[in-house]
Every structure is written in C-alpha cells, then in structure tokens.
C-alpha cells in the first residue's frame, strides 16, 4: 500500500469550470440535432402529408366553427355535470353511513376502471335497452350525461382529497359559531377545498376536452360532430391527414388559454389562502 496522504492532488478543473463545459456540451448537442433535422427532413414532403394548405382552407370553411363550438359545449356541460356528481360522490365517500361509502366506492372504482369508450358505447344503446328513456336537449343531454358519469368518478377522488386537506380547525371554528354541519361544509370547507384542487381539476377539464372526441360512438348527426370526428371525416374523403392536424391544433386553442386562465385565477386567489 502506498501512502497517498502527503501526495499533492492532481490539478483538476474547478467545479464551476466543469459545470460550464457541461453546459456548452448540452448546447452543442442541441445545435447538432437541429442541423441534422434540417439536412435530412424534406420539408415539402412533410407539408404534403400533414399540412396541405388547400385542405386547411377546405377544413376551415366546411363547418369547423360548428365542430369547435360542439367540443366546447360537450366538455363544459360534462364538466359541470361531473363536478356536481363528483361532489355528491365525494361527500358520500366521507359519509358516516357505511352503505353510502360502499356505494360511492363501487361507483368510483367501476367507472375509473372501465374504458370510457366502452361506457360511451353502452350509453349509445341506452334508449334501446330502456325504451322511452330520453335525455333532454338531445344530443347534448346524452353527451353530457355519458361523459359526466365517467369524469365524476375521477373528480370525486380529487374533491375528497381537497375536503380532507382543509384543516379540522376550520370545521370546529364554523361549528363553534353555531353553523350546522351541512352549512359548515358548504360555506367554509368546500370553498377552500375547491381552491386547493383547482390545479388537478384543470387537469381533469383538459382530459375531458380530449375525451369528448370519443362521443362519435354515440352515433351523432353531422351538425353534432365535435372536432375529431369532423376532422376525420374530411380527412377520409380527401385521403390526407391535414384536416385532422387542423382539428388537433384547435384543441390547443381550447386547452392553452384554459391553462393560462387558471394560472391567473390561482395568482389572484393566492392572497386569500
């Protein structure tokens, strides 16, 4: 064994210099990837497959606004329905009465576990299975109920977590003022719970926006098409993907402002937290 205790350590790069070199290397990789992409990709061919301008024109003028609006209406209605039902389910999960807890658990596990597409397919046959069953505001009522039933299962768990995240002292303070427990829940706990779960609920809303593309299985008429079904029909009749790509960008037009809006709301309510 050699004694290295007295040896002078080899002069190495200082940690800061090393970090600097690593950063340079990272930039270099990026530049190399970019150059490689420019050299190998045939831009004109890519555009022919995904983004033919004449088809963009056709997509925009053959009813895109209608489909865009339908997607928003389906999503918004289903969200409201899901939120209401989800809140009820969350309260049932927290109930003192055991059978309510079981019922809510069964509901949640079932609709979280089964693919939404299958639920929607089953929903499409509801009026056959139950003759005389009609949802109001057809087709909206059907779509809202079908999508809402699935999203309620997810939202219930989020809402329950939000309720549990409100400190126990809040209920105690409310009850000490003489509020009955229902009032304390409505006026004190739920407003705080929803503030806590705004980020996951936004997530839920974005997922729901995209899930609205599944409602085509309900067999809707052309005027009730949402973005995906609308885009796919034009894609198919033109043998090109461009209309679907346009539809895809329309989803971003919905979800990005939503994200931005919620971030603004959160910043605003931060002082009241």
């Amino acid at each position, binding site marked *: 064994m050699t004694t290295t205790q007295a040896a002078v350590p080899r002069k190495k790069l200082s940690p800061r210099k090393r970090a600097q070199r690593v950063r340079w290397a990272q930039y270099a990789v990026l530049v190399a990837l970019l150059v490689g992409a420019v050299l190998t990709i045939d831009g004109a061919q890519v555009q022919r497959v995904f983004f033919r301008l004449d088809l963009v024109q056709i997509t925009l003028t053959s009813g895109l606004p209608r489909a865009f609006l339908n997607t928003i209406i389906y999503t918004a209605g289903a969200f409201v329905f899901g939120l209401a039902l989800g809140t009820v389910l969350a309260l049932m999960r927290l109930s003192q009465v055991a059978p309510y807890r079981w019922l809510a658990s069964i509901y949640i596990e079932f609709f979280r576990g089964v693919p939404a597409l299958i639920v929607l397919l089953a929903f499409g046959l509801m009026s056959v299975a139950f003759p005389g069953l009609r949802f109001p505001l057809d087709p909206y009522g059907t779509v809202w109920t079908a999508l809402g039933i699935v999203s309620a299962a997810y939202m219930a768990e989020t809402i329950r977590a939000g309720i549990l995240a409100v400190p126990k002292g809040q209920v105690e*303070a409310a009850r*000490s*003022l*003489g*509020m009955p427990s229902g*009032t304390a829940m409505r006026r004190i706990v739920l407003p*705080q719970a929803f503030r806590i779960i705004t980020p996951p609920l936004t997530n839920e809303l974005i997922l729901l926006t995209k899930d609205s593309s599944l409602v085509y299985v309900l067999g809707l008429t052309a005027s009730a098409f949402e973005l995906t079904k609308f885009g796919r029909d034009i894609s198919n009749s033109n043998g090109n993907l461009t209309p679907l790509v346009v539809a895809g960008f329309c989803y971003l037009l919905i979800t990005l402002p939503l994200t931005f809006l919620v971030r603004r709301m959160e910043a605003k309510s931060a*002082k*009241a937290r």
Partner: protein
Amino acid sequence: MTQTIPTGRREDEIQIYDLHKSFGDVEVLKGISLTVRKGEVVCVIGPSGSGKSTLLRCVNLLEQPTKGRIFILNEEITDIDADVDTIRTMMGMVFQQFNLFPHLTALENCTIGQTVVKKIDKQTAIKTALGYLDEVGLKDRAGAYPAQLSGGQQQRVAIARSLSMDVEMVLFDEPTSALDPELVGDVLAVMRRLAASGMTMMVVTHEMAFAREVADRVIFMDGGIVVEEGHPDQVIGNPQNPRTRSFLQRVLDPTHVPDDRG
C-alpha cells in the same frame, strides 16, 4: 345535602357535573365538576396532557363527553335533544391556531356567523362586526385576508369574530401559545379589556402573569382531575398541593433543577 342539577340560577352560566372523557382506553378527564358564574374569569392551568383543553372543548361539545352533564345558561348541552347549534351561538370559542376562515376577509369572518346562523341582515352584521374589530384595534384591517395579518392580528380578529355573535361567554383555548413572544401582549391586552367589561371567560392558558392578574379563580388540573382551585393569589401565589407547587416552579423558572429525583 342534595344539590339541584342544574342550579337554575341565572348567574351560573356554565355548570359541569362529573365530566368524564376517554379517548380509546385513555381516560383524559376523570370526573370534573365546576361552575362558572356570569362575569367570572376562570383560568385553567396545568401541565400538557392534563386534560384542560379537552375540558374546554367538552364545554361547547367539540368533544363528546363519555359521561357527565354540562349546562350552558341552565340548558343541558349534553342532552341528546339539545339544540347544540343554538347554544353555541351564545358561547364564543377562540382557538390556539386562530382558525380564521382563510377565504374570507377579516370583516367577512366576523359577519358570516351573524348572517348565516343568526339570519341578521348584512348591513347590521357589518356594523356590529366593525364595532368589534374596532374594539380589538383592527378596524382599518377589516378588508385584509387572514394570510395578510400577523399571528397576533389574526387572533384578535378571531376574538372579534366570537364577540360579533353577541355571546354571553367566551372560551379561550391557549390563545397565545402559537404566537411569537412579541405579539402576545396585544392579544392579552384585548382579553384584559374584555374581562374588565364583565364578559364571562374560561381561559386555558400558560400565561401565569395574566392568570394571576385577570382571573377571578384559577383551576389547576393534573391527570384529568382538578387538583387545586381558588383565588389566583392563593393557587399561584401560595399553592398548597405539592403537584401545583412543582408545576408552578417548572413554569415560572424553567431553568430550575429539582433536587429530588422522584
């Protein structure tokens, strides 16, 4: 001599008879009986785990007693048929952690009980609330949210919130224990003024100087029972029970090392 339960005397605002409370196998309160009269300030002191907070929380039924009866203004709050919510509107509660509603302003914290529970119209409620906020010295912060207030200010708003219900009595559960030392004084000053105004107060506290100065009666609890009870000059100034003495020694002189090692 048999005692009538409840006494029926208007001035006996809180009457507790043989109160027991267990959490699982642990009996925290082992038979407490006491009466708080109108305008009286009763301070409850004792080591942590002695059951003093549980006692206070039983009084407005935040904890359900295992056994025993409690009467508020000669109405039995422990009775299964009691209108607990209405009885609670006559009795304020101030918590160690303030428990202000964070989504409401200081003013709204003080009006929500009035408008939602007592169905008082909004204008009257605001007037009442501003009056009490003024009394605790925070009228100019009425529009602030709790997160924008210091701990001491939050606790003063919490006191104003209780008073806004026009209560007969206020329960304080270690109101200054969560405060930075320099903020304790403002809260105690408000409580001192409240006591001087004739409010019935039951205060669980570690502030011995406050208890000695403001209390009409001090109750020393240990191990779930009342060990010593009486005028503050007696219980704090000249304690008779060795447990009281050893507790006070530890509280008043934390650096003191006891010579017996039992």
